[in-house]
């Protein structure tokens, strides 16, 4: 086990009476791509700014490669920082922008030239060196900002919502591009976003934050499939959450008794910390809830009939809101053939192994 590239040891940030980040500890292994994910105001950007040196933590210690950096000013931390609004120097050419950080590092002119050229070709814009930032598109500007941050060979790359200012298609291209560059350089990266699909697509580890606290840390699949709590379940994708009670907990299976579905046997690894008779919540992802024509074979799935109340047609998929009794269920399904229509009766089905269970409100 090598030393983590970045360690947060009980760091907290308070602004007067307001606590932006409660004491938080986090180890970020070298070479990992770690995403701080959460809604606005959850403290993710504050955390990033503390690591960058733009904010001083009120308490706790930040270590980079094992060394405390709390007192190290930003210009000596050797971190690559990429901002949402690119922050390119408008009065400098692309080349001068990328070379900026090299001026403060003892790099010869020839080497600086070579490294700038390398960085520009890494971001696939080798031809644009003599242009000014305003002559570039948003996506190009963000690539240049990335080149400027990595050319100094930083210890850690910090990305503050770098894709949020781009439009949807470009954002997905840049996502792939950013991940490719990070893989290639093997650079430790901390990425801040509120966009769960970015987090899921790019990260080695996701740190889900809410109201200044870490809610869950884990690889994308783990955070997605076995959310630690209701907040994580709701924040990462649309989830249906049902109140119920543990009917029978064994080593392999935890059977949940949920009013509308009856007994649902959830695999034990997706239902930690539950024992017999306790209140519990059943979490079902919207895309794991399948609509079928009534009367067709349920194939071992738990099923309940409902009426489609609203259809949000998205081309490839449709989001359905289905009424069963008191509950409004959300289902995101691929469309084959033709989608269900509003007012139609559908059989809503779920496979117990796709569900997860959380402790309920006591």
């Amino acid at each position, binding site marked *: 086990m090598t030393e983590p590239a970045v360690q947060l040891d009980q760091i907290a940030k308070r602004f007067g009476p307001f606590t932006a980040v409660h004491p938080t500890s986090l180890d970020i292994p070298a070479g990992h791509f770690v995403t701080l994910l959460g809604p606005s105001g959850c403290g993710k950007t504050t955390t990033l700014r503390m690591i*960058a*040196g*733009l904010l001083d933590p009120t308490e706790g210690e930040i270590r980079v490669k094992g060394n405390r950096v709390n007192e190290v*000013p*930003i*210009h*000596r*931390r*050797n*971190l*690559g*920082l990429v*901002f949402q*609004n690119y*922050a*390119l*120097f*408008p*009065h400098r050419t692309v080349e001068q922008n990328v070379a*900026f*950080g090299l*001026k*403060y*590092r003892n790099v010869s002119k020839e080497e600086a030239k070579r490294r700038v050229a390398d960085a520009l070709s890494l971001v696939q814009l080798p031809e644009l060196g003599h242009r*000014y930032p*305003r002559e570039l598109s948003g996506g190009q500007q963000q690539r240049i*900002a990335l080149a*400027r*941050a990595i050319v*100094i060979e930083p210890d850690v790359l910090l990305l503050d919502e770098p894709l949020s200012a781009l439009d949807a298609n470009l954002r997905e291209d840049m996502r792939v591009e950013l991940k490719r560059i990070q893989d290639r350089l093997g650079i430790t990266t901390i990425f801040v976003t509120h966009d769960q699909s970015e987090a899921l697509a790019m990260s080695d580890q996701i740190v889900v934050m809410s109201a200044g606290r870490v809610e869950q840390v884990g690889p994308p699949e783990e955070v997605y499939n076995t959310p630690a709590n209701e907040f994580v379940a709701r924040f990462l994708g649309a989830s249906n959450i049902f109140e119920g009670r543990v009917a029978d907990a064994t080593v392999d299976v935890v059977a949940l008794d949920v009013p509308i579905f009856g007994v649902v046997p959830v695999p034990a690894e997706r239902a930690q910390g539950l024992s017999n008779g306790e209140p519990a919540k059943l979490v079902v992802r919207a895309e794991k809830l399948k609509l079928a024509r009534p009367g067709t074979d349920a194939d071992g799935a738990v099923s309940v009939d409902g009426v489609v109340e609203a259809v949000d047609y998205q081309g490839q998929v449709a989001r359905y809101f289905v009424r069963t009794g008191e509950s409004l269920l959300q289902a995101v399904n691929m469309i084959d053939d033709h989608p269900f229509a509003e007012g139609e009766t559908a059989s809503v089905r779920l496979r117990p192994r796709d569900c997860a269970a959380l402790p309920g409100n006591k």
Partner: protein
Amino acid sequence: MATVEARERRQPWILLSPALAAVTLLLFVPLLFIVVYSFWLRTATGADVVGFHLDNWQEALTDPFYRDILLFTLKIAAITTIVCGLMGYPAAYFIARAGGNRALLLLLLMLPFWISYIIRTMSWINILGVSGALNSMLLWLGIVDEPLQLLYNQTTVVLGLVHFLLPFMILNVYVSLEGIDRTLEQAANSLGATRWQSFLEVTLPLSLPGLAAGGLLCFVLSAGTYITPLVLGGPTDAMFANLVFEAIITQLNWPLGSALSLMLLAVLGVLVAIYNHFVGMSQLAKGFG
């Protein structure tokens, strides 16, 4: 029936017309009168001779008296501009970075405009005059035995002009500093620049257009002033506008006064054109696309 295009073409002119009318009636027409006047001739008997005479222009352009005062005027304007720049930039930077107090500081900056420029200029007499505040204090402290003659020299003229023009400089620099994205400095810092280096590399160059605009304003306004040298200057500190005042009001020599005022206008116009050309051509302005 007018087409949409025709209507859209017409619209800017409709919106501009009140301003255009005002500029035409209040600026261009009087200016034309002055141009015409400058070719008339004043006679000893008092009645001006109408016609096309170059005598006034010849006098204005060849007499070294006028040339020297013009150069003196440009020198005072240049000194005032530099002093305003040196004093105004830090103040503007402070206001732009002041956070919550910005509105109050800007209000304080505007406050002097509520008092007439002439009264503000005269107020220096109460401070620097023989029986003014400063001399009284020096006498009381026993530092001097008799009042110092502090007023009526070049320095007080510059002082009065700086007092008048500093807010213009501060406002112009402030506006350009305000427009600079703060993350640019943070980006420079993250790349290894100290605060001072990032100021020199990023903030200063990006705020130069504001400094240039403020400088231009200070220069033109101080080169055209006649109240400040009148109130705070000595007998040898007359500036060019005082000559125009003298010719027109005192000597009632409108033709010569017209020629002199057009001369000042032309010189300042050329300077403004050079300045604009220079600022427009520089790399700095490019950043603002």
